[in-house]
C-alpha cells in the first residue's frame, strides 16, 4: 500500500469478544495504531459490591466462558486469602488438575479453531472439515476429553459447579479417577501429532524485545496456581502488590485501560511463561519445546501459538501425574465442602483483603477483594490478561507496520489480525472494565 | 413355610455371592440420615438400619425414564429394558407400595413394561425393629408387619438374621448360596416373642380406625384444610415423586438428529405440577395448588379404595420428609379429623 494506509477492521473474528483494529498511516508516519474494544460493558466489579464473598466465584466465573475455571480459581484464591483460609494439599492438587484442563482445553481451541485457519490460509475451520477432516476431528476429540474430565471433576467446564471456597463440594470417586486417567492417557498420540503439525507450519518472522510477565517461584514446579509475579526485566514482587505491576492507566486514543510495568508495556501468556519458566517444564514438554524451537522461549509474538502447544504437553503430562498420585494416596472424602456454608457458619468469616493470582490460558489473572466482617464485598478489582496485553499488542503493531507497509491491504490486514489473534485475546474478559466508545 | 438362619458375620459372603449372580440393589447411606437404593457388591456397603430411602424401590419397577417404543423411518417396536436383579432390604411399607403398583399395572390393559420388569426382580424384605421417625404411619396403614410380596424376608437379631423363604425363587437363592442353617424351634419362638414385643412399639399413629379414613374423605372435599395447603405448597412435586404408590407419567418423543429414528419414553410426572392438567386452549382443570394437594390426598385415601379396595398410602412418611414446606401427612389427616369432631 505504501506510505498512506487506512485500515479499519471491525468486529475482529475468531477472538473472544468484540474488538476492532484501526491503523492510520500518513506519509509513513503512524497517526493511529489501536486495538479498540467495543464489547458492551458488564460492570462485574460494580455488581459484586454488597454480595457475599461466597458468591464471588460463581459470579466472576461468568466473566468469561472460556476461562471460567481460571476466574473461579483466582476468585477462590482471593477469597481464601481474605478469609485467611489455607486449602489442603488434596484441594491444591485437584485445583492444579483443573487448571491444567483449562489451559489444555483453551489452548486446543485457540491452536486449532482460531489460529490454524490463518496458518493454513483459510477463513475458518469450517472448510477444514472437508479438507483436513482428521485434524478437525482430532481437535474436537481433544476438547471433548478435557471436557469429560472437567465434567467429572467440577460438573462442567463452563462455569464449574464443584469448585468452591474451601475445596470441592463433591470429590471424585475412585472410579472417577480411573475414568479421568483413562481419558487423558488416550491423548498422548493426539498431542504428539499436534506438536508435529505445529512444527511444520510457517509462522511470520518478527522479533521485538518485549517485557514478559508471569508467575515465578523458587521451587521446581512450573508455577501456575501460586508464586510471586516476575518479569524478564528482573522485577519480582508479591502478588498482594499486583497493582505495582499492572499499573493501570487510561489513554485518550484508545478505549481500553492499559497496564505497564516500569513505564513499559508487557506481555503475559504462554510465551511469557515459557520465557520465565521453561526450565521447569515437564520433560516431555521440554522435548516439544525443542522441536518447536522454543527451548529458551523467544521474542516472536506469533510463536505464542507454538508456546501454547508446548504447554499442552506439559499440562497433559502433569495432570496424569497428579491423577496417579491421587490414586495412590486415595481421596479423603471428609474434605467435601457444604456450600452456602456461610449460612450455617461453617466457614468463619472476618473482614479482610485478599488477592488471587493465577496463570490462566492467556496469562496471569488477578482478583482482589475487600470484605467486611460479615463477608460482604466492599470492593472488587479484577485484572485480566488481555487488558495487560493490549498495550504490548499495539507496540507490536507499531513495530511490524514499517516492515509490511508495502504489501497489499489484504496482506496487511491479515498480518495484523494474525498478530492480534496470536495473543489469543479474550475481549469478553476485558469488557468488565473497558471504556466503551463505538468507532462507527 | 421355611425359615433359615444366617450368622451375621456371613452376611457379607451372602451379598457377595448374590452379586456374583446378578445385580444387587440395597439401601446405602447418603449422609444426613438419608438413604437410597443403589447397586452394591458387598454387605459392608449396605445400611441395614435405615429409614425409608429418598426414592422408593418403585424406581426399579417403573424407572424414572423408560423407553416404550424405539422407532426409525419405517418401523416402530415396543420394547422393555430390564435388569435381572435382587432388591435387598425392602421394608414392609415399601413391600406394600410394590403391591399397590402391581395391582395398577396388572389391570387390563396390562402394562407389559412393568410386568416384564417385575418378573425379573427378586425381592428380599427386611423387618423394621423400631419406628424410623415421627413421620411414619405404617401401623395406621397396616404395613408394619410383613404381608407377603417378597421372595425372602429378613428379620434381624443380635447375632443372626432369620430368613423367611416365601417363594421358589427365594428357595433357589438360599440353596445356591449354601451358607444357611435351618431354623429351629428356639429361633421360631424368638421370632414370635419379637413380634409380640413389636406390637407394643408400633401403635396406631392417629386416633382413628383405619377403615374410617375413607368415610372421613367422603365429607372433606370442601374442607378448609385444602385452602391452608394452597398457601404453603410450593408445587415442587417432591411428595409424589418420592411416594411408593404414585405412578403418573408423561410420554415424550425423543428423536435423534436425523429426526426419523428415536424413542418414545415415559417419565414420572406429578399431579402437583402446574402444567399437569392444562389442555390446549389454556384451561387448567386443577389450577390451584390447594386443589392439586386435595387430589393427591384423595388418590391415597379415597379413589383407590373404590377401585382396588385399599389405601394407596403405606405409611412410609416419605412425602412428609421430602416436603420442604413441612406439609405432614399425619397433620393433614389430624386436621381433617378435627374438622369433623
Amino acid at each position, binding site marked *: 500500500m505504501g506510505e498512506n494506509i487506512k485500515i479499519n477492521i471491525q468486529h475482529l473474528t475468531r477472538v473472544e469478544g468484540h474488538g476492532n483494529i484501526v491503523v492510520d498511516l500518513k506519509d509513513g508516519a503512524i497517526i493511529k495504531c489501536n486495538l479498540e474494544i467495543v464489547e458492551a460493558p458488564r460492570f462485574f466489579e*460494580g455488581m459484586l459490591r454488597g454480595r457475599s464473598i461466597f458468591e464471588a466465584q460463581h*459470579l466472576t466465573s461468568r466473566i*468469561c466462558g472460556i476461562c471460567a475455571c481460571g476466574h473461579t480459581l483466582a476468585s477462590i484464591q482471593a477469597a481464601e486469602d481474605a478469609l485467611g483460609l489455607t486449602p489442603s494439599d488434596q484441594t491444591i492438587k485437584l485445583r492444579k488438575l483443573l487448571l491444567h484442563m483449562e489451559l489444555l482445553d483453551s489452548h486446543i481451541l485457540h491452536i486449532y479453531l482460531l489460529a490454524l485457519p490463518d496458518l493454513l490460509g483459510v477463513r475458518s475451520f469450517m472448510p477444514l472439515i472437508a479438507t483436513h477432516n482428521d485434524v478437525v476431528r482430532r481437535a*474436537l*476429540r481433544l*476438547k471433548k476429553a478435557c*471436557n469429560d474430565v472437567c465434567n467429572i471433576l467440577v460438573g462442567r467446564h463452563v*462455569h464449574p459447579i464443584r469448585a468452591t471456597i474451601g475445596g470441592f463440594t463433591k470429590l471424585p470417586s475412585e472410579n472417577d479417577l480411573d475414568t479421568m486417567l483413562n481419558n487423558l492417557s488416550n491423548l498422548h498420540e493426539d498431542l504428539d501429532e499436534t506438536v508435529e503439525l505445529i512444527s511444520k507450519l510457517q509462522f511470520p518472522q518478527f522479533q521485538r524485545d518485549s517485557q514478559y510477565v508471569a508467575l515465578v517461584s523458587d521451587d521446581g514446579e512450573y508455577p501456575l496456581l501460586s508464586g510471586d509475579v516476575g518479569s524478564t526485566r528482573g522485577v519480582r514482587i508479591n502478588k498482594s502488590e499486583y497493582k505495582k505491576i499492572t499499573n493501570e492507566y487510561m489513554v485518550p486514543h484508545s478505549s481500553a485501560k492499559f497496564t505497564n510495568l516500569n513505564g513499559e508495556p508487557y506481555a503475559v501468556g504462554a510465551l511469557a511463561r515459557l520465557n520465565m519458566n521453561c526450565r521447569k517444564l515437564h520433560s516431555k514438554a521440554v522435548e516439544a519445546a525443542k522441536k518447536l524451537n522454543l527451548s529458551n522461549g523467544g521474542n516472536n509474538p506469533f510463536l505464542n501459538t507454538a508456546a501454547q502447544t508446548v504447554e499442552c504437553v506439559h499440562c497433559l503430562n502433569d495432570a496424569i501425574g497428579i491423577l496417579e498420585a491421587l490414586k495412590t494416596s486415595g481421596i479423603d472424602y471428609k474434605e467435601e465442602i457444604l456450600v452456602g456454608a456461610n449460612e450455617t457458619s461453617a466457614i468463619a468469616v472476618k473482614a479482610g483483603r485478599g488477592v488471587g493470582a493465577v496463570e490462566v490460558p492467556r496469562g496471569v489473572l488477578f482478583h482482589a477483594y475487600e470484605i467486611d466482617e460479615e463477608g460482604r464485598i466492599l470492593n472488587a478489582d479484577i485484572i485480566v490478561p488481555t487488558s495487560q496485553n493490549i498495550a504490548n499488542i499495539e507496540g507490536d503493531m507499531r513495530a511490524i507496520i514499517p516492515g509490511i507497509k508495502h504489501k497489499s491491504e489484504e496482506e496487511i490486514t491479515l498480518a495484523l489480525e494474525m498478530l492480534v489473534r496470536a495473543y489469543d485475546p479474550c475481549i469478553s474478559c476485558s469488557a468488565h472494565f473497558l471504556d466503551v466508545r463505538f468507532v462507527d | 413355610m421355611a425359615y433359615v438362619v444366617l450368622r451375621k458375620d456371613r452376611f457379607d459372603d451372602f451379598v457377595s455371592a448374590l452379586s456374583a449372580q446378578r445385580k444387587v440393589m440395597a439401601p446405602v447411606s447418603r449422609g444426613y440420615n438419608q438413604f437410597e437404593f443403589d447397586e452394591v457388591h458387598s454387605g459392608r456397603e449396605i445400611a441395614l438400619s435405615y429409614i425409608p430411602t429418598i426414592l422408593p424401590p418403585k424406581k426399579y419397577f417403573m424407572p424414572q425414564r423408560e423407553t416404550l417404543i424405539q422407532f426409525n423411518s419405517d418401523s416402530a417396536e415396543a420394547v422393555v429394558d430390564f435388569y435381572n436383579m435382587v432388591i435387598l432390604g425392602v421394608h414392609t411399607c415399601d413391600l406394600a407400595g410394590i403391591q399397590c403398583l402391581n395391582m395398577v399395572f396388572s389391570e387390563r390393559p396390562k402394562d407389559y413394561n412393568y410386568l416384564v420388569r417385575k418378573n425379573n426382580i427378586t425381592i428380599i424384605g427386611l423387618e423394621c425393629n423400631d419406628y424410623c421417625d415421627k413421620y411414619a404411619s405404617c401401623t395406621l396403614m397396616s404395613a408394619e408387619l410383613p404381608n407377603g410380596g417378597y421372595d425372602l424376608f429378613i428379620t434381624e437379631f443380635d447375632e443372626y438374621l432369620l430368613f423367611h423363604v416365601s417363594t421358589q425363587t427365594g428357595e433357589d437363592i438360599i440353596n445356591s448360596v449354601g451358607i444357611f442353617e435351618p431354623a429351629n424351634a428356639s429361633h421360631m419362638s424368638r421370632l414370635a416373642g419379637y413380634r409380640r414385643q413389636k406390637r407394643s412399639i408400633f401403635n396406631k399413629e392417629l386416633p382413628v380406625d383405619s377403615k374410617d379414613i375413607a368415610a372421613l374423605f367422603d365429607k372433606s372435599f370442601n374442607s378448609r384444610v385444602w385452602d391452608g395447603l394452597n398457601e404453603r405448597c410450593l408445587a415442587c412435586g417432591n411428595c409424589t415423586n418420592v411416594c411408593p404408590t404414585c405412578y403418573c407419567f408423561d410420554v415424550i418423543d425423543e428423536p435423534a*438428529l436425523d429426526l426419523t429414528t428415536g424413542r418414545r419414553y415415559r417419565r414420572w410426572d406429578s399431579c402437583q405440577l402446574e402444567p399437569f392438567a392444562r389442555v390446549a386452549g389454556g384451561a387448567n382443570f386443577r389450577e390451584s395448588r390447594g386443589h392439586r394437594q386435595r387430589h393427591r390426598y384423595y388418590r391415597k385415601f379415597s379413589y383407590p379404595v373404590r377401585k382396588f379396595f385399599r389405601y394407596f398410602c403405606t405409611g412410609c412418611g416419605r412425602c412428609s420428609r421430602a416436603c420442604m414446606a413441612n406439609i405432614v401427612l399425619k397433620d393433614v389427616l389430624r386436621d381433617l379429623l378435627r374438622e369433623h369432631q
Partner: protein
Amino acid sequence: MARPKAAFFDFSCCEGCQLQIANFGESLLDILNVIEVVEFREIMSEKYDGTLDVAIIEGSINTPRAVERIKAIRARSKTLVAIGACATTGGVNGIKNVFPLDEIAGYVYGGNFRDYETIQTMAVHQVVRVDYFVHGCPIYPPEFVAVLKALLMAIPYDVPDYPVCVECKLNGNVCMYDRGVSCLGPVTRAGCNSWCINNDNICYGCRGMVSNPNETGAIDVIKQYGLSIERIVNKLEMYNKCRELNPHG
C-alpha cells in the same frame, strides 16, 4: 432437504454458551450436518448478510446500539433462538439493574462514566420476539439439542414449567434443605436435570423462575429453616432481576 442457514450472534455475555456448543466434540460435526452455519464470529471469519433461517442469540441487550442490532437481526431471521441466561432472562448482567445506572458506571469507570452508553440490562425477548428459549448459565447441551430438533421439525419446544426439584428428586439427590442450606430449586424452572445439585452444590436459579412460583410459601420455608431472607432475595436477584422490567417483552 436443504440445511437451514444458521448464524450465531453474541451480545453482552461470557460466550460460554457458544463454547458449550463447541464442546460437543465430534458430535458437533453431526450438528453441522443438519444446519449450515454461515456466521459465527467467535470461530469463523465468514460473514453473511442475507436472510437467515435461524438466528442463535447469546447475551443480553444493554446498549442502545445492541437494541438496534438485535432488531436488525430479527428482521432478517425466520426463527430466532435465545440461548443462555444472559439472553433468556438477562442473566447475571441483570444485577446491574440493582444499582442506579450512573452510580454503577461511576464506580467502575470513575469520572468519565458519562461517556458510556449503557441502558438497563434486558433479555432478548424484552426487545424482540423470540421463538425458542434455551435457558441456563451455561446452557445444558442436551436441551440445546432438543431445541435444535424441535426447530428443525418446526414445532414448539416447551420449556418445563415446573421446578428443578422435580429433576432433583428423579435423580435421588439428598435435598439441600435437609443439609440445612437454602436452594433456589423450588422456584426455578427445570430442564437442566438438576445439574448443580447433582454436583452437591445448590441451585442458583440460573434458568429463571417458574411462571407461577408460590412466593409466600417459599418465604415461609426459608423462615422455617432459620435461613436469612435477605440472602435468598439477594440470590434470586442473581438471575431474576430483569424479570421486573417489562416481563413480557
